[in-house]
């Protein structure tokens, strides 16, 4: 890796405004992973078959692991202690301070819903991570490359299940269509810029979410149609309200955060 000697310099070279913006961007990215991972973990002990119970526990661990990597990089950029900062962000922020998209936080629903959500996310993540692995900020590019390897497996897994559930029985097909109808409007928020994205994109550090979304939606629509699903016509919210979409959470979110943080908040000083 010929560029390694330059890594320590980057923090000096990167403009302070970019450091700050990138930390906010990464925290939002990490929040998506954390919250999706939390929802995935809710299948532990409840999945329809043992093998998928294990698979979803693996997915949850992977997503939460990815969140940790991004939180740690954000800590580096902010000059925070990266052994402590991720826990502070996860356990001691209020629900309103999280920047994940609503698509990640919706209750796990039935197996069709969770599987389809996972597919929509995995397909988007594969594109975003591919772009991030080309980032001009080397530490970011390296982590993206590593995460992408795992996400490619996730995508293979979720695509395999989407196809089989849609083409399986009448009931599984009906449930998949219902899941798509419910999820599709929320997927529109994948196009929303992450915090700080405009400046970071101009500096070649991160991709444009809107451009990724164009690419993603043509891929996802082709795949879903190949599986015989009909694509809902409406995308809600309307693009004009997207900018703030990561600041607004669904009615289900406070309970999720309560569940996630309850034990840590019982005794904030406890050593685990």
């Amino acid at each position, binding site marked *: 890796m010929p560029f390694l000697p330059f890594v320590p310099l980057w923090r000096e070279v990167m403009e302070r405004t970019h450091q700050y913006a990138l930390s906010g961007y990464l925290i939002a990215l990490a929040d998506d992973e954390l919250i999706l991972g939390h929802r995935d973990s809710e299948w532990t002990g409840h999945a329809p078959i043992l093998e998928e119970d294990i698979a979803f526990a693996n997915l949850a661990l992977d997503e939460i692991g990815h969140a940790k990597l991004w939180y740690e990089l954000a800590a580096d950029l902010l000059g925070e202690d990266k052994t402590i900062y991720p826990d502070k962000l996860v356990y001691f922020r209020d629900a309103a301070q999280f920047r994940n998209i609503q698509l990640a936080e919706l209750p796990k629903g039935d197996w069709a819903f969770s599987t389809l959500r996972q597919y929509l996310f995995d397909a988007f993540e594969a594109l975003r991570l591919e772009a991030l692995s080309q980032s001009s900020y080397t530490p970011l590019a390296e982590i993206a490359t590593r995460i992408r390897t*795992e996400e490619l497996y996730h995508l293979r897994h979720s695509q395999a299940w989407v196809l*089989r559930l849609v083409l399986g029985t009448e009931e599984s097909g009906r449930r998949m269509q219902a899941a798509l109808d419910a999820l599709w409007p929320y997927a529109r928020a994948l196009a929303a810029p992450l915090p700080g994205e405009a400046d970071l994109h101009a500096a070649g550090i991160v991709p444009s979410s809107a451009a990724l979304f164009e690419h993603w939606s043509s891929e996802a629509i082709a795949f879903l149609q190949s599986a015989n699903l009909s694509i809902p016509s409406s995308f809600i919210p309307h693009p004009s309200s997207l900018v703030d979409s990561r600041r607004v959470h669904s009615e289900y979110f406070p309970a999720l955060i309560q569940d996630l943080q309850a034990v840590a908040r019982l005794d904030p000083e406890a050593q685990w």
Partner: protein
Amino acid sequence: MDTQWPRYMVFQQEGPDQPMVHNGTVHAPDAELAMLNARDVFVRRPEAVQLWVVLADVIFTQTQEELEKAEPVDQSTSQLVDYYVFGKFTQQAQCRHIGQVQASSPQVAVAAAIATFADKQPLWWWVFPASTVLKNESSESDPMFSAARYKTFKDQAEYPVITMMRELRAKANHKDTENTK
């Protein structure tokens, strides 16, 4: 109606110099999902470099005892296909890869294996046509297997729950004794 999915046998190679060994079974509606299930169930850790899944029903097996009672097989040489040969050498050992033979039927494959691998005497022979195996694509081996390499995990022994509980109980008992004095 039997709603149970068929069983697939999972074979795994843990390192480039290791043989393929039978690691367990998964249920799956088809071979591709059996492969994904095998990955999630068996190769999250320890590490693997290759994974095979085979429908359990296509594996023909014969123990030493069954071989002694078996009728002589028709040694027809028509329509030869490749068979993988596996063997279990002790009760505890996993069934491991021995080699490959060509045969016209599973019974003939076992007979051919006994002749070809005369120095091997497993307690139990397993043979199956090579064409029935789904192997992971080597181009996908990184997404399939990298998790085991990068994920750190705590060994169960690192959670000192049993000792900790013993100490807590001892402390509680001690307190009770103090209180009743």
